[in-house]
C-alpha cells in the first residue's frame, strides 16, 4: 500500500539521521514526557503517548483550562498567538465551540471554493488582523485552518512535504482523500493532547479509473444526495465497500480533518466559532449549478455575516478557488467596506422613511 511504503521509507531514512538531528525537531518540541518514546524519531511511528496525557478527557480536547501550563508545545519560544479556546461557559452550547475563526469551503460545478476571515485572536486580544488561514499545500490543494495557528501552520508544512515526497516517488499526486487520510494518521498520536487542528482540505483530483484499487479505502459517499454533510464517519480502520460514482473519483473534492480523529468527506463545511452564522447563509444559497461569481459572493456574504456577529472573526476575507488548473486567489478584501456600505444603505432608507412620515 502506498501509505505503508511511505512509512517504511521514512522510517529508514529518519533512523539514520536520528543521531545528528538538532533538537529543533517537532518531535522534541512536544512535551518532555514524549521523549522516552521518541528514540526512533520517526514521524509516523505510532506509539502510545505517555499515560498522563491520557488523563485529559477527550471531551475536553482543545479546551484550555486556566490551571494547565504543562504540555504546551510552544513553551520555549515567545507565546505564539493562538485562536482562543472555550473554557467553562455559563450556558453550555450543544457542542463545544473551540476555534475562534470562521472558515468555510464548498464544492460546486466550478470547483471548490474556500473562504476564511483573517483575524488571529489570543483570548480577547486581536493578535494579528491580517493572518492567512487558507494555506496552499500544492498546486491543486489548499487547506483552511482553524484551531491553534502554530499547530496548523506546522502540520500544513509537514503535509506539503509528505505529499511532495509521495509525488516524487510515485509519479502522481496523491488524491485529496489520501492527503486527508495522511494528515489524519499523522495527527493521531497526539489525540487527547492539546494539539488543535481542524482543517478542511479542498482539492481537485484528476485520476483516471485505473488507479482506484491502489488508492485504498476511498469511502465516497453519495455526493448528489440532498444532505450537504455526509455524516457517517469514514473510519480509516475499516474497509467500506460502497457505491463509487465515477464522477466523484476525479474532480473537486472536500475533506474535513480534525485533530480529534474525525475525517469526513462532504460538499459543504464551515469550521470555527463563526460557523453557525455562516452555515445558515450557505444552506440558503449553495447549489451545484452556481457560477463562479455567484459562489464567490455567497462565500463572501457568509464570512461577512459571521464576522458581523462573532467577536473572534473579523477584519478581511480571503477567497481561494480550486479548479482543474490549480488554485487561484482573489485579492484580500477588507470587510470594513462592506460594513460601511450596509450602514450607509440602512441610513438612507431610514432617512427616506422619515421624509415619508
Amino acid at each position: 500500500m502506498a501509505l505503508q511504503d511511505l512509512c517504511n521509507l521514512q522510517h529508514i531514512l529518519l533512523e539514520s539521521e536520528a543521531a545528528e538531528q538538532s533538537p529543533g525537531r517537532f518531535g522534541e518540541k512536544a512535551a518532555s514526557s514524549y521523549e522516552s518514546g521518541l528514540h526512533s524519531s520517526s514521524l509516523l511511528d505510532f506509539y502510545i503517548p505517555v499515560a498522563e496525557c491520557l488523563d485529559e478527557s477527550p471531551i475536553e480536547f482543545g479546551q484550555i483550562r486556566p490551571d494547565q501550563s504543562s504540555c504546551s508545545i510552544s513553551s520555549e519560544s515567545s507565546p505564539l498567538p493562538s485562536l482562543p479556546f472555550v473554557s467553562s461557559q455559563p450556558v453550555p452550547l450543544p457542542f463545544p465551540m473551540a476555534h475562534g475563526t470562521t472558515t468555510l469551503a464548498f464544492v460546486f460545478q466550478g470547483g471548490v471554493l474556500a473562504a476564511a476571515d483573517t483575524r488571529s485572536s489570543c483570548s480577547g486580544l486581536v493578535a494579528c488582523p491580517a493572518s492567512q488561514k487558507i494555506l496552499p499545500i500544492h498546486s491543486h490543494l489548499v487547506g483552511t485552518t482553524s484551531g491553534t495557528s502554530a499547530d496548523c501552520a506546522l502540520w500544513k508544512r509537514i503535509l506539503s512535504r509528505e505529499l511532495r515526497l509521495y509525488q516524487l516517488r510515485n509519479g502522481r499526486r496523491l488524491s485529496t482523500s489520501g492527503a486527508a487520510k495522511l494528515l489524519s494518521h499523522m495527527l493521531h498520536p497526539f489525540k487527547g493532547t492539546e494539539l488543535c487542528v481542524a482543517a478542511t482540505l479542498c482539492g481537485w483530483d484528476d485520476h483516471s479509473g485505473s488507479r482506484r484499487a491502489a488508492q485504498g479505502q476511498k469511502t465516497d459517499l453519495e455526493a448528489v444526495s440532498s444532505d450537504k454533510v455526509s455524516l457517517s464517519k469514514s473510519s480509516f480502520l475499516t474497509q467500506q465497500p460502497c457505491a463509487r460514482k465515477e464522477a466523484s473519483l476525479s474532480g473537486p473534492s472536500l475533506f474535513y480533518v480534525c485533530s480529534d480523529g474525525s475525517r469526513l468527506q462532504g460538499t459543504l463545511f464551515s469550521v470555527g466559532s463563526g460557523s453557525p452564522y455562516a452555515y445558515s447563509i450557505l444552506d440558503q444559497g449553495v447549489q451545484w449549478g452556481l457560477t463562479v461569481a455567484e459562489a464567490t459572493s455567497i462565500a463572501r456574504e457568509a464570512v461577512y455575516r459571521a464576522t458581523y456577529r462573532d467577536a473572534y472573526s473579523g477584519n478581511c476575507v480571503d477567497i481561494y478557488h480550486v479548479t482543474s488548473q490549480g488554485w487561484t486567489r482573489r485579492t484580500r478584501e477588507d470587510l470594513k467596506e462592506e460594513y460601511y456600505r450596509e450602514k450607509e444603505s440602512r441610513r438612507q432608507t431610514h432617512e427616506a422613511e422619515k421624509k415619508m412620515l
Partner: protein
Amino acid sequence: MALAAVCGGQSSSEHFGQLFSGKQARLFDRPNHFSFGTKIQEFAVPVGNEPSGFLRSCNREEGVRIDLNHGTTTLAFKFRHGVIVAVDSRASAGNYLASNDVNKVIEINPYLLGTMSGSAADCQYWERLLAKECRLYRLRNNHRISVAAASKLLCNMMLGYRGMGLSVGSMICGWDKEGPGLYYVDDNGTRLSGRMFSTGCGNSYAYGVVDSGYKEDMTVEEAYELGCRGIAHATHRDAYSGGSVNMYHMREDGWIKVCKEDVSELIHRYREGMF
C-alpha cells in the same frame, strides 16, 4: 415608585430592610404563597435550601451537572409594518425530545406577545404572571400598559430570583403609543430594546439568515419569508430545535397568527435544486 404604587406596595426602603435581614424565614412559605403584589410586594423564596448555593454545587465540572440549556430557536424583528415573531416548536429534555408541538409564544393580550426559551416551566409560569399584571394595570389605569413597562415588570421578577436557577430567555413584543416595541428579557435581569433578537441555542444560525436578508423597507410578505427562513435554517442545523414554525405578526391593531408550517417541508422547498 410608580411600580410600587401600582402594586399597592409600601415604600421600597421598608422592603429592602425586610429582604436583607438575617432572618428571612418570616418571608417564607405563607399560606398565600402566590399572591404577588396584591397587598405587599414580596419575593417568596422556598423554605429550606439556599437555591444559589445548591445550583452552584450542581454546576461544577465533576459530579452531577444540571445544564440549563436554552434548547430552542426564537427570533423577532421590527420592521416598517410592525414586529414579526417566529419560533420553533420543539421541547427537549436533555437528549430526549419531549414534544415537537409546543407553543412557545404566549399571547399576553391582543397587543402584547411573549416568546419563551429556556426552561419551559419557568417561562410559562412567569409570563402568565406577567399577563396577570398587565391586565391589572389596564384595569387600574384605564389605558394599556406600554411594552417598555411590561418588559420591565418581567425583568424585575427575574431580578428577584437572580442566581437561583431560573432559565428564561424571552422577547416581549408589542405595539403601543411609541410604535412597535421589542424587548429582550432574560433570567440574569438583562433587558434590552432592539431591532432584532434571536434566542436559544439555534440563535446563531437564525442571526446569519436574518442579518443577511433584513431591509428596513421590506414588504410584509418578504418579512414573513425571512422569519420562516430564519427558523427553518436554524432547525436544519441545530439538533435541539425543530417541529414547526409558529409565526405571528404584530400590527398596529393587534397581533395576527400568520402560519404554522412544518419545518421539514420548508427545508425541502428551500433546498430544491441543491445537490
